[in-house]
């Protein structure tokens, strides 16, 4: 006859679950691209035939007052060429995202196009599809 032993409470070892969860958090934090220019308020222009495009790490913005921003930092328009050329120097991809407020006047944004063109950048104009 079998003798009944002491009852042992069944426990699932879940200590490693916390480790996995924290590894996931670290992974997400390291692979996320944080928006550098969340503070730049822009009303983006719209167009009917606009498509999704590849994100670039370099961005130039201009708000409706004509203030230019390079990588989220205020930057005078005259030195954008220099700044962008320095950022592009060690990159194969020359794409620069250009985000301009829809109400910015040409006297302000016209110069940015020239500066980016002189810096050897490939310009990607960022806007919104018209139905959004």
């Amino acid at each position, binding site marked *: 006859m079998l003798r009944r032993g002491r009852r042992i409470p069944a426990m699932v070892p879940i*200590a490693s679950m*916390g480790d996995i969860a924290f590894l996931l958090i670290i992974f997400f*934090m390291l692979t996320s691209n944080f928006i550098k220019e969340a503070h730049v308020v822009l009303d983006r222009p719209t167009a009917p035939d606009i498509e999704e495009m590849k994100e670039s790490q370099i961005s130039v913005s201009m708000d409706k007052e004509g203030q230019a921003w390079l990588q989220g930092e205020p930057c005078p328009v005259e030195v954008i060429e220099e700044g962008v050329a320095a950022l592009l120097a060690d990159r194969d991809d020359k794409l620069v995202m250009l985000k301009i407020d*829809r109400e910015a006047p040409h006297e302000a*944004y016209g110069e940015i196009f020239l500066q980016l063109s002189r810096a050897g950048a490939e*310009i990607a104009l960022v806007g919104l599809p018209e139905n959004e």
Partner: protein
Amino acid sequence: MLKRAHEHKEIDVAAFADVAFLLIIFFILTTTFIKPAGNRLEIPSGAPDPAKTETKQLTISLTATEIHYGPKGEKMTLDELRAALWQCNFKARPPDRRAVIVESAPDVPYQLYFNVVMAITNADGVLAIVEEEKGAGR
């Protein structure tokens, strides 16, 4: 003296995993995934070739509210401009004959400029950025 049974002591870490997963859920829900939309601009580079300056290039002039197309400055709406640019059939042209010059008044809002540039690139045209020589008037 008190005699104690040898107990196996463990810290309960079950809540640790719960907190971590709650953090993950919080980050996932509060993250905004941005997929930028736009168009790549093709811009001719380099100095103008004097031999090619005689070639007639298409010019679009913009004022704050109006679009004027071609050498005669025909006034157009944006849809008419898109149709006119498609008729140019830039795709069949050599690269040096795809350039479209956009002349802009200082008060042209970016929305209008953006629409015109999008129309040019969607019709396979190339935006030519014209730089005024220093000291030259408009």
